[in-house]
């Protein structure tokens, strides 16, 4: 299946004791210190004045990292917007890999360490591409199958993917529930092992 125009993955904060403001200097430092070694980071965009929306963006060339408060559920959203390749399964793996890397960077950041925890047992995945993945039944089924395949292998056998019954104008969106998901390091290792197995 084709890779979408944009793919986003949001992990939710299981614990957080800092407010959005605290991420601003962190993101600026991430840019300065090239913390994400394989992505070009550009700028910080502050929208925390908007209620229950994307509050803070670390804008990148290939991807954005967002402290997202949508629906009152704070989380870290990774939005891959360029260089997704052509194949959905590879795009999914790459997005997941970078998103998990983002989670790890955030949890271990020198200013944030011990102040937040992102849960790996649930995530929201959105196909932001109304041309190839309109939010209707047509594309949803095969996208869901691919998601189950790609994410199931990493998050554990009891991981399930459900389609979110959202407004058709919104992107095609799925939820991942993975009650026995391991910690982030294990997830990253599994993903790497899977990549090695596929010869990528």
């Amino acid at each position, binding site marked *: 299946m084709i890779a979408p125009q*944009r793919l986003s993955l949001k992990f939710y904060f299981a614990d957080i004791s800092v407010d959005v403001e605290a991420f*601003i200097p962190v993101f*600026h430092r991430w840019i300065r210190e090239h913390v994400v070694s394989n992505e070009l980071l550009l700028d910080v*965009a502050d929208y925390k004045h*908007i*209620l229950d929306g994307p509050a803070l963006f670390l804008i990148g*060339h290939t991807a954005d990292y967002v402290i997202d408060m949508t629906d009152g559920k704070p989380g870290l959203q990774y939005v891959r917007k360029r260089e997704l390749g052509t194949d959905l399964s590879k795009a999914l793996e790459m997005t997941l890999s970078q998103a998990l890397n983002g989670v790890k960077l955030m949890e271990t950041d020198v200013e944030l360490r011990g102040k937040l925890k992102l849960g790996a047992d649930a995530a929201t995945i959105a196909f932001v*591409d109304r041309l190839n993945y309109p939010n209707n039944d047509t594309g949803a089924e095969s996208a869901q199958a691919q998601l189950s395949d790609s994410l199931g292998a990493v998050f554990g056998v009891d991981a399930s993917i459900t389609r979110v019954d959202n407004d058709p*104008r919104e992107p095609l969106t799925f939820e991942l529930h993975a009650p026995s998901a391991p910690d982030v390091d294990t997830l990253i290792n599994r993903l790497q092992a899977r990549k090695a197995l596929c010869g990528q």
Partner: protein
Amino acid sequence: MSNISWKEILLEEMPADLAHEVDIFEGQMELMGQGKLDEKVFAETRLRRGIYGQRYDNGQRHDGFESRDLAFEESERIKGPDTLWHAPGMQRIKVPFGGLTPDQLDVLAQVADEYSDSILHVTTRQDIQLHFVHIEDTPDLMRRLASVGITTREACGNSVRNVTCCHLAGVCRTEVFDATPYADAFAQFLLGHDDVQDFGRKFKPAFSGCENEACGLVMMHDLGYLAQVREVDGKQQRGFKVFVGGGLGTVPHQAKVLSEFTPEDEILPQAQAVARVFARLGEKRNRNRARIKFLVAKVGIEEFSRLVEEERKTLPHDDRWSAYLDTLAHYEEKPTRPPTFLNGQVRLSAFNRWFETNVYKQRQEGYSVVTVNLPLGDLTSKQTWALADVARKYVGDNVRTTVEQNIILRWVSDADLPLLYEELTALGLGDPGAGTIVDITACPGTDTCKLGIASSRGLAAELRTRLTTKSASLPDAIKDLKIKISGCFNSCGQHHVADIGFFGNSRRSGNFKMPHFQVVLGGRWRDNAGSYGLAVGAVPSKTVPEVVDTITNRYVDERAKGESFQEWIGRIGKKQARSLIQPFMQLPAFERQPEFFSDWGDPRVFSLGDIGIGECAGEVVSLFSMEIATAESEAFEAQVALDESDPTRADALAYSAMVKAARALVRTQFLDVGDDPNRIVQEFKTRFFDTELFFDQYAKGKFGQYLFERHQSPNQNPDIDSAHRLIEESLLFIEATHVCESKVGGNVLIEL
């Protein structure tokens, strides 16, 4: 890559002309990528499609310690002078008179979500802006907008910008008549018009329904229209008092009266005449003096009026001047619900606070206008879809943006107000305080603007938070004061017409620079931006909240009964006004107060290192260069059509490319040649072919003959071979046009 494309999917839904324009632009992007288009020409081309540069797009960013390279891929690839191809930019979307439908809101939200950061930003000129857009996404973005009747054409660049109009027009209690259909006709008429393609700078028009309110702000516009009615032979005649040469910027000018009364059937030809005078006599090389206000000031309003009148007499007749008048009688907005009254419903105190500031009673009984107070002019895609549904339910198509960066819902049936308030609140869009001191206007400033010096949005957010927290206890005298903030002296935040205005600048303390804001007091928002404020001094950015408190407290303490803020500032004078802020003007050392050396919402140590060159600055491109670029794009499109085995389309495009090239050449001598191919070919023949100016040293008139042959004998059934041949001929013809133009020397220049 996908086998389907927005271009194919939306083919039937896009107006043909808009679709074609986007194709042309896409062709120009392709040519730019191949290095076949001049960078300055391409820059102006994309600006005229609303694609603007954004901070750091030269590949440099100051990280608080030093300026560092942003390692974009293909760093040699550019989209204009000193502007990297892959750097994100801003897409401005024109919204004439601010009018939007729910369907348009839906699509705007979708393109924001897919190509931007999912935030829609309402500007001080009723546009919508999206930020962090990659140029390669813009053709599809434009196609999707075109499918709901929106164009981004001439949203930036040296062109006629969005035509603004009072957001209350048509429902206002004090207007003379509804200016909306006139603003709309004006926008349609001048969009892409030949006579507005050769300005030295941008040109901003505005319409207003009455003299005393603020809404239209005609006094600060390049061309402003104020609705008037006069009696002629016992009959009421509609028209406008017309103003010209207003503008903010570094040196604000109040507009001058061009005519006391221009009848409705004369406003379009008169505007056309103004455009021609501006194009011909306006400054082209020095952008700092290129706005029409400088021309009006230079020649004087009497002489300027005379020139316009003379020009008017020479204009070839155009049916469009008055055609729209026939439709005026049918112009009306339809409410979706019957009129009702707010009577007896339970009213919570939160609703009452909102009702007091965000609801305007319409002239039409039983209806109100509701202002959706957007913090900093922003709303998310998700909010936009929900707002579109709220609009569908309560007001239908009657949605507008405002110059105070809000959105209004018109024709709300009064009894619906409590429920509507609840629904807006649930969306995070129910903030009270619209049009009051908490509803602060701010330009993008250092967040995204290349020219920004200080963080106007950061400051606005801070002031909004602080003032909202104490809004219940604010004295009545200051509740309705306007605060407006610009990130630099260019005044996009309209600080000159605020009670309390600020624009960003900087001061040095030791070895460090400190963000500052110049304080501008006593500007007049009412009376269509009736007068400009007094600059009293600059204070460190971090002191501004205290400065606001100090000024407002003194005003509350010292004002005479009924004395307005402007009157008070006028009474105490500049010296005393300055003394109010004097205590804040001291510059602390970095070591003592390092927080003063970074800006609101930005922890980096402040620097001016990120200021770039504004995209309206400096370069000069000839009108010929701009027009020949369109011809080249059509020739390119013809090649694409041939590759797609569509010889009929390829043939038509190749011919059209030749006609456009000939037209570009003719217009270096004769601007009024129009669009008729017969006329263009005839003028080309007389001026360039018969005179042998077009002749090649060796091929003589051969390239010109290509045009004549295809023009006289169109091929009824072009096949692949004949289309291929014609494309080759069109390329040679375009090449010869370039050679001829450089030989003869074009005389019409455009400044970037």
